[in-house]
């Protein structure tokens, strides 16, 4: 048998042998902690974490043969209307820029739309779509400090004049992009590519996928909230959304239900991007009944 597949099945056996289930605890909170997530909110300390083993992604190319972190620690809470997941994993460096030779840190969580046991962990499959919640450090930096401009990656850049810019020299990105002429020179921004959003307010997006086949697609309806924090060589990221978003591309979650989900992380310093990631197998998951 193919060596990475052998390793993978070994890990599945290890994970299931422990029989760990991620339990989303009921917390009697209003929507605010979900709409403005905080990885350091005190209630997280009251939750029971699950540690899921991470492995390299060797199912499709480009591949990554060994994981960047051995484990991801996951916690979850819900209040009967919203759910939030807190993911924590080791990462020595905070990588929050993208450039020719820079990649961003990130984390994702995948929820199968099909009932438990009917989906592959490889971002779903034909007829078995996944809903994916994806946070990126570069997006959080955009939200905190504004969308990265040329001077963020090249502080000493000397610019004569940009296309569509009314006057010579450099100007802030948003000012330049106010001109239709300038947007024509930045087609991904002009066309609204989801990775080229210069006015981002949430550092994460919801996607849909039906497998490792280039099927990943940003959902039209975005119901996600997220925030991350890097400290002491670890990332802690919270991803939240309403239990029922009303979006057919999202899994309807209900208190008391049992389901499954899996996780992925990207280490920008290691050149992780796209399919080059560390990910976990599907982890059993249940939502505590609301009182």
């Amino acid at each position: 048998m193919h060596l990475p597949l052998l390793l993978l099945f070994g890990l599945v056996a290890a994970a299931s042998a422990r029989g760990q289930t991620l339990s989303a605890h009921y917390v009697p909170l209003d929507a605010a902690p979900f709409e403005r997530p905080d990885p350091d909110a005190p209630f997280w300390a009251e939750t029971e974490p699950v540690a899921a083993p991470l492995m390299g992604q060797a199912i499709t190319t480009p591949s990554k043969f060994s994981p960047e972190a051995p484990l991801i620690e996951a916690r979850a809470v819900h209040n009967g209307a919203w759910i939030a997941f807190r993911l924590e994993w080791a990462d020595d460096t905070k990588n929050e820029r993208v450039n020719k030779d820079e990649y961003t840190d990130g984390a994702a969580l995948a929820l199968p739309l099909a009932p438990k046991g009917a989906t592959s962990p490889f971002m779903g499959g034909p007829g078995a779509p996944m809903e994916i919640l994806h946070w990126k450090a570069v997006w959080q930096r955009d939200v905190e400090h504004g969308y990265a401009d040329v001077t963020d990656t090249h502080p000493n850049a000397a610019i004569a004049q940009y296309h569509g810019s009314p006057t010579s020299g450099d100007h802030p990105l948003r000012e330049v992009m106010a001109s239709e002429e300038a947007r024509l020179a930045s087609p991904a921004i002009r066309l609204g590519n989801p990775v080229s959003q210069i006015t981002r307010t949430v550092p994460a997006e919801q996607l849909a996928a039906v497998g490792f086949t280039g099927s990943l697609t940003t959902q039209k309806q975005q119901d996600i909230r997220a925030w991350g924090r890097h400290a002491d060589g670890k990332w802690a990221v919270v991803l939240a959304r309403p239990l029922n978003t009303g979006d057919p591309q999202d899994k309807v979650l209900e208190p008391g239900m049992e389901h499954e989900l899996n996780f992925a992380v990207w280490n920008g310093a290691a050149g992780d991007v796209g399919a080059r990631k560390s990910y976990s197998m599907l982890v059993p998951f249940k939502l505590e009944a609301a009182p």
Partner: protein
Amino acid sequence: MSTVHNWQLDRAMEYPYEENRSDRQIAYVFDTNKCIACQTCSVACKTTWTSGKGQEEIFWNNVETKPYGGYPQAWDIKLLQQLDGQKWDGSRYEGKTVFENVPPGERVLGHKPEGDDYAQVNLGEDEVAGELDRGAHYMGTHHMWMFYLARICNHCTFPACVAACPRKAIYKRREDGIVLVDQTRCRGYQACVAACPYKKVFFNAVTRVSEKCIGCFPLIEKGLQPRCVQTCIGKIRLQGFISKPGEAREDNPIDQLVHIKKIALPLYPQYGTEPNVYYVPPVHVPLNFLQQMFGPGVEAAIAAYRNAANDRAALAAMLLFGNSPRITTRYAYTEEETIGYDDAGEEVVRVPLTEPYMVRAAYDARFKAYRYNTP
């Protein structure tokens, strides 16, 4: 993996997708012997397409000085070092292409340039291959060599960028073979940047997606040649369409120069992508260097080029270069001139095979003066 036929290698090869040639294939011939590296093409391209934020180091068109120049730096050497052997048996390539020597976990053999490799667009400009011996001086033949290599996307028949993109965000147009990055679909993984052997896909750090030469398709759709071709003051370029292997037409100037006379050769055909910019190799450069760069047909190509003055079909095709903004898809010639036509059969351009000239006597009796040639 599928098996496709790459005529430039004279053999079948592996490629991730089935052979599915476009209805038409855009192609160019660049005559390196005429290029003076004025960079008018680079500027025309840059001001037309890549003068926005994040495109500061993006040069869809560049002109570099060989042997030492290259943008990004050492783009070709870094891949050549990874290609084993690069052996040819006559016209057949016996080595492995970038699709046949793929490292585990990758889709294509490639390399990702460092950020600094993009820092200096014209490093090595005008540097010659070596130092002159003490006392050497010009006696009609230069002792050292260099030449200018103008480069754009090759709109390859088997593009490595297409093969590498895990999102299928890059596609080849059926109507003209132009290769495009879908700017709404790309998520900036940069797999194409690492895979393109010619390093003609660039990452834009502001839009956070990859961008590449679009073959000036809005012009092509109007029957006009791309900006880099139209603006070339040295008239080194001709853009047209190349016929499929075995379907070459005598009256297609690109076919005539590439398929029939074999004067123009692909750049690094051993990479295996079947690139569609064809170069007339420089006549004054050591053959072993040129053979690595343009394949085994170099010696014959140079001989055919040197003989072009006696070969009216070749000469007539080459005199179409730079004489009209419109695309010539068919040409004919008489003893005096060459005539280009477009798809509709309309005359595009008419050029004399020999420019009008007059011979004047060395001594001008009227002014009682001798005339001297100043070559």
